[in-house]
């Protein structure tokens, strides 16, 4: 594979979540985390899942990633059942999950080193390319503790993008950041998504965030986790987080959440 091809990236994947149910059995009680979840995600689609905490969003992402196994149903990625984690579906977690024993560059290299078919010099080129893409080319040598929260999530994004996954799973990646940094990142993520089409499943409990980013918003409700409603958002991109249309869509989403007995924050 040439470096050029590597930087172009493979086509995004199609995902099918097929009647997935999940229970967590504990000593005292059994939690019914997901109940009969079905979802079809097209190639290159940006899906945002919204729901209050505890409604099973993270569990659903874990199952799609292959980190957890469903008790019923299955997940298909490009018509192949997902049985294990694999580098075609990378996850970006709420806390950055960056490795403190590596610097920013080392963190981005971690996943690349696990990717066969590349020379080490090419891996370094790819890592630099993605650190550049997230605007951190000056911070390659920085240690994790020296980065701000927003920069950490940028490195985490570069780390997730670098091995060129076909699906990007993002679990409330910006929840811990301040509003300013977050708005910047909404811009960045849309720009990057335009450039490097990926199938993205993005989890949040923030309806404005959902309206700003999604092609489709999936509303979930808790106990047990169910999909209640799906909204198409057809606004042109890039979208401005503070625009009136976004606010309007957000209030529709809030109304839907309330109707399904769930309260999410409007602004987050």
């Amino acid at each position, binding site marked *: 594979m040439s470096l050029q091809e590597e930087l172009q990236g493979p086509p995004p994947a199609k995902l099918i979540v097929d009647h997935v149910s999940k229970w967590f059995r504990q000593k005292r009680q059994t939690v019914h985390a997901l109940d009969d979840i079905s979802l079809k995600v097209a190639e290159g689609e940006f899906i945002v899942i919204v729901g209050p905490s505890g409604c099973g969003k993270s569990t659903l992402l874990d199952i799609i990633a292959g*980190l957890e196994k469903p008790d019923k149903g299955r997940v298909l990625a490009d018509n192949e059942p997902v049985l294990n984690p*694999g580098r075609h579906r990378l996850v970006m977690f709420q806390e950055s999950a960056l490795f*403190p024993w*590596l610097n920013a560059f080392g963190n981005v290299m971690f996943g690349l080193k696990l990717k066969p078919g590349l020379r080490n010099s090419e891996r370094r080129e790819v890592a630099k390319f993605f650190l550049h893409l997230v605007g951190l080319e000056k911070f390659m040598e920085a240690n994790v503790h020296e980065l701000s929260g927003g920069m950490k999530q940028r490195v985490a994004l570069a780390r997730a993008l670098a*091995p060129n996954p076909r699906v990007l799973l993002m679990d409330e990646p910006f929840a811990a950041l301040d509003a300013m940094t977050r708005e910047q990142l909404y811009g960045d993520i849309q720009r990057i998504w335009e450039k490097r089409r990926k199938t993205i499943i993005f989890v949040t409990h923030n309806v404005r965030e959902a309206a700003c980013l999604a092609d489709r918003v999936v509303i979930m409700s808790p106990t047990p986790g169910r999909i209640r409603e799906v909204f198409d958002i057809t606004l042109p991109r890039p979208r401005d987080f503070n625009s009136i249309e976004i606010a309007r869509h957000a209030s529709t989403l809030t109304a839907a959440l309330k109707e399904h007995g769930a309260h999410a924050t409007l602004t987050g």
Partner: protein
Amino acid sequence: MRRSLLAIVFFVALAALWGAIVRAQIWSPVLLPSPLSVWDYVVNAGRDGTLLSASIVTLRRLLSGYVIGLAIGLPLGLLTASSTFVEDTIGVLALGLQTLPSVCWVPLALLWFGQTESAMLFVVIMGTVWSVVIATDTGVRTIPPIYARAARTMGSRPFHKWTRVILPASLPYLVSGMKQGWAFAWRSLMAAEIYVTILTGFGLGHLLHYGRELNAMDQVIGIMLVIIVIGLLADKILFSPWERFLHRRWGTGKR
């Protein structure tokens, strides 16, 4: 620079105070020799090679016991952290034995191995292993599980995960465990050398022991100083680089 100057001034003052007390003749010079006579002993013993050969013998024992202790302790600690069966068996044993002062191994070593190098080695290993096991175990358990999950999604398999994620992630604990293991090994070796007279090598502990037998207080204090200096140097040479690395990467140790 200023700080090392301060340290030098402090130790010179300490030696001066010591000299003043000797000159005041509160204790007999047999019990408290002057700093100069201690210095003379150290210089002479250094010149005739006694110190060097004793230090080499001691350090060789220490290093071999320590390395074996690490080689046993590290994997054991990984095992106790990852299997409840090992945790409930070896883990509990390690916890118990770690509280045992390492001198307590000396009588047993003597009975099992006699006055041999093996007895020395055994005592040093026992002094090292358990604290390394406990530190490794604690380190691995303290790692946020999200590191391993993130690594798995990037395609990390179990062996890769252990060597590239779990071990480096627990490095802060490993280094402090290795440091503690080193201190215990050093202590237990001194105990062994003082109690076990063997013919295969004359260590610093033996010099200390014979200093006492001969009532040569300058020798006793001189050797003690040498032991302290070696301990300090080992700490600087073996562990300071690691600690600097940890502080830089993890952002710890700032005041």
